[in-house]
């Protein structure tokens, strides 16, 4: 069928009815392209432009002043810290999960994949809420700390003695961030490793490689672009997460505010320029992420072709 049509095309030239029938008329093509581009410009580019114009409205001086404000710097530090803990944790988990799912056979594999995807289906607000339920003062941990006859008394004493707080403190922010960014790496790696199969790993085993050697020399080079891709998406979400972190943070200025939360506080104080200045940092991160992502896709396509 295909060859016949191609053959016909070759005989009849490019303007043959067959070719015309699989292509759209120019007016259709142009109007659809125009609709698509206008829609994207209106919905995506306009907000992006708005962030930078609003941030720079009062000039560069005010812009940089807003960025080096002590609370702003604290927010930036906390955001970096949360990302620096949750991203590596999820990378390790993502690789382990993808490895377990693609290289071994066991029952309930599909259930496991669905469970890994769960955090994507959960509203960010609920992600925060469930941590409050577990670790908050009213929650399981709070009940444990106040219990009269606790299980493992020394552990309770230690917890109380440490004055250890999770909710409305930094550990809660890190946990919530880890939850919402949980699936990114695993999700990128699972289809990739499924497509690649285990042949190369088997070959390595027959050549006498140890498990770690196989991973480092065979698997890792094969998945490096997919892994990198997962990491940058995970990182973008970790730094920008708002809903979940907002529930567990407690909003203490300079202590438990991440950049997105600081944006909200500044905005609600009608300090618009400063809010947009902080927002512009996150917008730059988003642009940077998109650029890296395109570059990786391009590199991957290149390495795939050769």
């Amino acid at each position, binding site marked *: 069928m295909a060859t016949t049509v191609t053959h016909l095309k070759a005989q009849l030239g490019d303007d043959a009815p067959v070719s015309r029938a*699989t292509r759209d008329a120019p007016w259709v093509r142009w109007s659809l392209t125009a609709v*698509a581009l206008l829609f*994207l410009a209106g919905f995506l580019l306009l907000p992006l432009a708005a962030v930078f114009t609003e941030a720079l409205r009062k000039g560069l001086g005010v812009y940089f002043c807003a960025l080096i404000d002590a609370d702003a710097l604290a927010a930036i530090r906390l955001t970096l810290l949360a990302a620096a803990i949750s991203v590596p944790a999820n990378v390790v988990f993502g690789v382990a999960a993808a490895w377990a799912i693609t290289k071994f056979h066991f029952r309930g594999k599909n259930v496991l994949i669905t*469970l890994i995807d*769960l955090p994507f289906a959960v509203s960010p607000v609920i992600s925060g809420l469930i941590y*409050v339920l577990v670790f908050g003062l009213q929650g399981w941990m709070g009940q444990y700390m106040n219990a009269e006859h606790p299980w493992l008394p020394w552990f309770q004493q230690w917890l109380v003695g440490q004055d250890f707080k999770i909710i409305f403190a930094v550990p809660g922010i890190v946990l919530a961030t880890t939850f919402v960014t949980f699936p990114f790496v695993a999700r990128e790696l699972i289809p990739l490793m499924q497509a690649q199969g285990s042949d190369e790993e088997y070959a390595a085993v027959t050549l006498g490689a140890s498990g770690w050697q196989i991973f480092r020399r065979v698997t890792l080079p094969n998945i490096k672009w997919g892994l990198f891709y997962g990491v940058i998406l995970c990182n973008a979400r970790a730094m920008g997460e708002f809903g979940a972190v*907002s529930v567990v943070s407690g909003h203490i200025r300079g202590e438990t505010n991440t950049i997105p939360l600081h944006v909200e506080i500044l905005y609600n104080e009608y300090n618009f320029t400063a809010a*947009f200045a902080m927002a512009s940092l996150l*917008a730059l991160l988003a642009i940077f992420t998109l650029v890296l992502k395109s570059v990786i896709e391009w590199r991957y396509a290149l390495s795939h072709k050769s």
Partner: protein
Amino acid sequence: MGFTLTYLSLIVLVPLAAAFIKTSGMTWDAFVEAVASPRVMASYRVSFGISLLAGLVNAFFGLIVAWVLVRYPFPGKRIVDAIVDLPFALPTAVAGIALTAIYARNGWAGFLEPLWGGVVAPDGHVVHNGFVQYLGSIFPGVNWGEWLGLKIAFDRPGIFIALTFIGLPFVVRTLQPVLEELEPEFEEASATLGATRWQTMHKVIFPQLLPALITGFTLSFARALGEYGSVVFIAGNQPLHSEITPLLIITKLEQYDYQGATAIAVVLLVTSFTLLLLINLLQNWTRRHQRA
């Protein structure tokens, strides 16, 4: 393997279970009271209604965008393709304040105001009556100012815009791979059998895209249901009118009504799990259907 399961349980399963266990401690009446009070019902109407609308708009425009990106060559295509993912990469709070800046009354879209509201010259001479008044004279009885989104930010149309923004990539990204794999032979065969281009589009191409389109729509709908960050800035958040369900959870938390908040959360969780299940069923069905 063991590590995977432990980590999964600690970070995801145990906290999620906490929500269900917390509500199981409530009596049935208390649960109904918490999830079906007028204010909560109103928030479901706002959340579900506007998410549905945003999902449909995204399905329509997403189809066009995906089609254009896969089929038509144009300059700057790579950049456009990358920009589609912007709502994934841009933090929701940033999207929220940016959209508010555009659609607030004195914002960027303020130049549209004379078009709706009319223009009166300084000497009192009416230059232009505004569409709202025209429409009002043709179809009286409807508050056209409200309907047309005269007030976009701090009201329902604002929620719609924010939810459309965040859901857009889902439709495009689910359709793109399917469109790329569509074989031109089908279209060629259809053409050789005498079908017009429109017939081919709607009888040959569209049915093959439909499962992906529904999946994309459902994903964007599910995401819109849970969205919080971008909406709170633009919605105005009036109880019973423009208050979304996730915001209500936060409000209850701030009043230390943990049970009430958790009960609503359970309703939302069950809804999104059902949607997820439907998508999985749909995908399994398509796979079997296409193989047969």
